[in-house]
């Protein structure tokens, strides 16, 4: 995300969370937070607790955010590293984890097929780290798995209800087994790869371990220290892949 992308991201975020944008110019926005967003963003639990205790209606704050240095407005300057943006990232991640969406088609009597889609994050970790994103979709009728499924989804219009005069086909494969098939797919993918990064990490690990053993060889009374160091080496170098789902859900698509 470049500095120029930040403003449009922020605007979309506040629109999606129903916070009215009161002012906007190139490089600056002022938004009226909703009570819900105020609670998530402004870190004033005592205020909200108090308001709720006395049964009053709270007054959510406004936020003034600046995305271009040249702007002379009062407000927070938001760049890629600012804690405020990262707070918004994590709220966005929390709020968009689960969906069930229907393709908005404007013809009559269209059958919508069930798909399960997940965005999966693979983190390759040792003393170093690299991430990889997978976007997998499985057709819950045939079991076909499609990679980069998000690219297909983002070309379409989506709504939370079935469009008029269309109907959905029930899944033959249950969402849970669909998910299990996707997991198996990911694991096969991992097994099929050569993991040079992991071999290299193990080599570094062994090298350091040999030095360590040598250092403590014949030294009395340092067993605990040695074990600590050894365990620290394991935590540092042991290669592992951590997999988590960013978000996902059921998508009903027109068959093509």
């Amino acid at each position, binding site marked *: 995300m470049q500095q120029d992308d930040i403003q449009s991201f922020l605007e979309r975020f506040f629109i999606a969370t129903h916070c009215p944008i009161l002012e906007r110019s190139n490089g600056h926005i002022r938004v009226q937070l909703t009570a819900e967003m105020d609670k998530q963003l402004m870190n004033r639990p005592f205020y909200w607790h108090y308001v709720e205790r006395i049964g009053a209606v709270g007054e959510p704050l406004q936020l003034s955010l600046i995305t271009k240095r040249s702007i002379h407005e009062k407000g927070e300057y938001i760049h890629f590293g600012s804690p405020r943006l990262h707070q918004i990232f994590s709220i966005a991640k929390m709020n968009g984890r*689960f*969906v069930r969406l229907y393709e908005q088609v404007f013809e009559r009597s269209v059958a919508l097929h069930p798909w399960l889609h997940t965005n999966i994050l693979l983190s390759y970790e040792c003393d*170093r780290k690299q991430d990889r994103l997978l976007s997998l979709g499985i057709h819950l009728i045939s079991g076909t798995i499609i990679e980069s499924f998000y690219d297909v989804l983002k070309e379409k219009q989506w709504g939370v209800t079935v469009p008029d005069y269309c109907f959905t086909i029930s899944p033959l494969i249950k969402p849970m087994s669909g998910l299990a098939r996707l997991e198996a797919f990911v694991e096969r993918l991992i097994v099929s790869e050569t993991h040079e990064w992991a071999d290299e990490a193990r080599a570094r690990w062994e090298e350091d371990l040999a030095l360590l053993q040598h250092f*403590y060889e014949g030294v009395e009374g340092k067993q605990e*220290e040695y074990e600590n160091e050894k365990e620290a080496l394991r935590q540092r170098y*042991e290669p592992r892949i951590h997999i988590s789902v*960013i978000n996902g859900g059921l998508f009903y698509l027109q068959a093509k």
Partner: protein
Amino acid sequence: MNVTVHWEKSWKDEFMTRIERDGPWSNWELYELALESAKALTIPQFDGLQAPKHLPHITILPHQYDVARQVVEQMNGKAILADEVGLGKTIEAGLILKEYMIRGLVKKALILVPASLVSQWVQELNEKFFIPAVAQRKSYVWEQCDVVVSSIDTAKKQPHRDIIYEQTYDIVIIDEAHKLKNNKTKNYEFVQGLKKKFCLLLTATPIQNRVEEIFHLVSLLKPGHLGNAEQFQKRYGRLRTLHDDAHLKELIRKVMIRHRRHDTGIEWTKRHVETIFIDFSEAERNVYETIRQSKPHFSDTALSHITLLREICSSKEALFCTLKSMMERHPGIETTIGALLQKMNEITEHTKAKKALELIQTINDKVIVFTEYRATQLYLQWFFKQHGISSVPFRGGFKRSKKDWMKELFQHRAQVLIATEAGGEGINLQFCNHVINYDLPWNPMRLEQRIGRVHRLGQTKDVHIYNFVVRNTVEEHVFALLYEKIRLFERVVGELDDILMKLQSPTFSNHLERMIAQSKSEGELKIKMQNFVEILANTEERTHAAR
């Protein structure tokens, strides 16, 4: 396969529940925003640094970027950061910490720094790096906060020690790590017992006196890298020349990064060094000679004798403090001291102080005066005041807030800052470019630290350094000779490290002290000093030849 795979199941479980309960479901826009947020936070590759794009407001200099990158990519997160003073080791450490935190490889961090620097570190990490670091004030902080800054002295004490030992740290960062050069100390032992995945040791002077120091530092970082203690002693213990230690150098290069000013590619302003010789007044000379001749009276306190000589070169106030405590400890020398005190009373003004005043008036700009003695510091403050010059004191023992306040006062209100040795660490005074070394420290490394306060990144003007030396005193014999001949001031610290390392003198300042204490006459001392300087010069030549 050589990799363990771990699936996080929380999404799956929650998804299951939502299907059963038929929601709640988000909309497409939130779904997209969530994915975009996650994408923004992914680490695209093992190599390179992510931190700089999170820190657009910091100017990261090329050598700082290289250090961070090298530590992460080649040194596997364990390194001694040994750039010269003023090149921004704190920035480098912050950058590395930030990088690991962004990558999710570090969550729990312990940062051990001198007590006087705790708040500064906390502030810099929070404000510059957006790292929510906390100063350790309550004992629950160790367990509840992820990034904690503390002094070693606090951390090693109970009940903290036990709590800290229960924690597993992803990274431990230690500032001023040269204080851990001795493996027999409690601090060393304490750090050795920490559970740490990554580790950074920060020091501008990785070797101050002896080659073993580097062994102990490296062993703290990466036990075994330089072999075990016995082998190291056998192989490198008697190092004399560079040729013998090429291998050692290579090994050290793998765990230590050291940049010198000239290889940072940054335009540094010049250093102008001037030695100003001062002649004692009659009264001062009288006191000096009395101390010199009464050496037998202080025979059981050989070190004190030199101390006294050095002190009178600074101020009678400094001398008086020591005499007072000597009198309490050795009642037997009261008569000698009594006579001395009488002679001291005849000193009405210090020639050196007058010279300093004169110089400050001519400079007519901000000046930092360094002295070794607190008594001199107070005296100078009073003396300058008498002549209408405003000054602020500065000591290492000041609380952070007081240090900041004094710096503020100096920058905006006062012309002079008078600092004692301990005040030298951890303050940046780039807005000033004149330094008076009112008296000179034993250890040349400390000089670099003094000068480093002003001659650092951000200094836009040439830096002027004035060294005060009283003629025909221990100052001239030792310092003038040493500092002049080997041009210590103009030299980069690293070179001096090399030279001292090659010399293998037990410790540099001890060596000097012994030389002075054991000399029976001025003449003998002079000859010894000349020899010493010659050895230094020879070693230097060999160093250069070997390059």
